[in-house]
């Protein structure tokens, strides 16, 4: 057991609070985007994801991801079932309490599951969603986390092919690419919403979405700078580049829609900010603020293009977890291979003359994308064939708030 560094602990405590808050950030961002009749459900799915992750992670999720290595790198072992061995002291190789490390990582699992509520929007059975989420956390999230962060498959394959370990500072692949591409798979299984493509669905509450984005922006400092696991220059730099990439992403999307649509919408700027945040996530421990301006802008533009394509394609991945998290996560992971600076995170990228990192990033990304797509598709299909993943047409018409929760978001005809 290592000894606990109290400063690292102080910052990781605060960071964990920020990351947990992000789950609600996703909930509100998404809820504002759907129609009034589904506003409650869109929050309830994130709250369910948070709660399921909260318990699943303690029981089995953490150990599958982070304890040792089993099945030739497919997953962790089961030694930390029930978080055994992760208590008040610092585990080997860490300088924060094991319990806190597990909580911080568990918050990441919850955020990832919350992002993945997007394709369920406005049409999924709450029971089907819940079962899917439990399975997905166990069979996809924990596994991918192990592959990338605990020397598992993605790491091994990339290293074997390129001689370089791929890097993912705060989850560009594990969190964003995995959830984004999983969202695409789920959308294909669920099919589009009733009336999709025939009429426009208007966001029911843009200030609520803005609140969600606000929580995300601030919460991301815990996400990225917390991932340093210490209160150091590295954490400080991570916070700075995170903020800069968000800003530059918002500007890039704003300018793009100003040029192409004549007007910059607030939802566009916020989407750009989130895409910028996603893109900097894997890079935040490796680049400087000028790099961050470029990474944030490119992440936002990639998402902008992906979203435009998605809209034309007819795929109803409703709240664009794929276009924003999936695509910007991928973009950021590759750009990490380009911009990484030895002097910051100890790893050199393409611009410093090392092409292998980019290659390693690419290999790891491909592994994560392929696994997420296939595994999520199969899980969704299995749930659909058994419990049913989609509500009946009347339930969808009346809205999920009434049909799944017997609640209405906003009181009507009060006395």
């Amino acid at each position: 057991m290592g000894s606990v560094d109290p400063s690292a602990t102080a910052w990781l405590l605060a960071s964990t609070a920020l990351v947990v808050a992000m789950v609600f950030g996703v909930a509100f961002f998404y809820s504002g985007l759907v129609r009034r009749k589904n506003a409650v459900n869109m929050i309830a799915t994130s709250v369910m994801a948070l709660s399921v992750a909260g318990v699943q992670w303690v029981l089995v999720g953490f150990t599958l991801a982070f304890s040792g290595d089993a099945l030739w790198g497919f997953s962790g072992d089961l030694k930390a079932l029930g978080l055994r061995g992760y208590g008040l002291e610092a585990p080997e190789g860490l300088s924060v309490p094991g319990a806190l490390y597990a909580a911080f990582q568990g918050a990441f699992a919850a955020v990832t599951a919350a992002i993945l509520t997007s394709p369920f929007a406005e049409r999924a059975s709450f029971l089907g969603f819940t079962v899917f989420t439990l399975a997905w956390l166990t069979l996809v999230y924990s596994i991918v986390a192990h592959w990338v962060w605990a020397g598992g498959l993605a790491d091994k394959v990339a290293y074997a092919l390129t001689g370089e370990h791929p890097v993912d500072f705060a989850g560009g692949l594990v969190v964003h690419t995995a959830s984004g591409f999983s969202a695409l798979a789920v959308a294909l299984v669920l099919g589009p919403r009733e009336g999709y493509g025939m009429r426009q669905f208007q966001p029911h509450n843009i200030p609520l979405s803005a609140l969600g984005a606000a929580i995300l922006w601030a919460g991301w400092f815990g996400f990225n700078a917390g991932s340093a696991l210490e209160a150091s220059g590295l954490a400080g730099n991570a916070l700075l580049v995170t903020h800069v990439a968000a800003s530059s992403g918002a500007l890039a999307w704003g300018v793009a829609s100003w040029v192409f649509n004549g007007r910059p919408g607030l939802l566009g700027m916020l989407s750009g900010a989130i895409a910028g945040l996603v893109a900097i996530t894997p890079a935040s421990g490796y680049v400087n603020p000028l790099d961050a301006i470029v990474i944030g802008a490119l992440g936002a533009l990639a998402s902008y293009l992906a979203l435009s394509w998605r809209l034309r394609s007819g795929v109803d991945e409703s709240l664009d977890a794929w276009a924003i998290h999936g695509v910007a996560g991928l973009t950021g992971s590759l750009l990490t291979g380009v911009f990484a600076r030895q002097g910051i995170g100890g790893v050199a990228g393409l611009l410093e003359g090392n092409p292998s990192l980019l290659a390693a990033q690419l290999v790891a990304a491909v592994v994560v994308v392929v696994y997420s797509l296939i595994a999520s598709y199969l899980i969704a299909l299995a749930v659909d064939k058994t419990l049913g993943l989609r509500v009946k047409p009347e339930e969808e018409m009346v809205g999920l708030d009434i049909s799944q929760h017997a609640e209405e978001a906003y009181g009507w005809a009060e006395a």
Partner: protein
Amino acid sequence: MKKVEAYIRAERLEAVKKALEKVGVTGMTVCEARGRGEESGIELEYRGKKVRVDLLPRIKVEIFVEDDIVERVVKAIIEAAYTGKPGDGRIFVLPVVEAYKIRTKEKLGK
């Protein structure tokens, strides 16, 4: 065919719905409105200052019914919406020239 318009307290809506079901009327459309009556709202006194609150929330109920049951409908609403205190509201009956049901594209009533 007639149109019955009732302006009632929100808290009596459930009672009115039930009373109408009892006389066999289920179809209706309601919306939120604000109204004031002859006394133009109510007056609140607060630490000596008087404040008049005029447009208070009300529910407007619209029901199209055959001529022969207008009376029954009006009576049902009156009974159900009644509290006896100022603000109970009004009921008006308007003439209707023709009516159509969209789903069947058929002309109704007369």
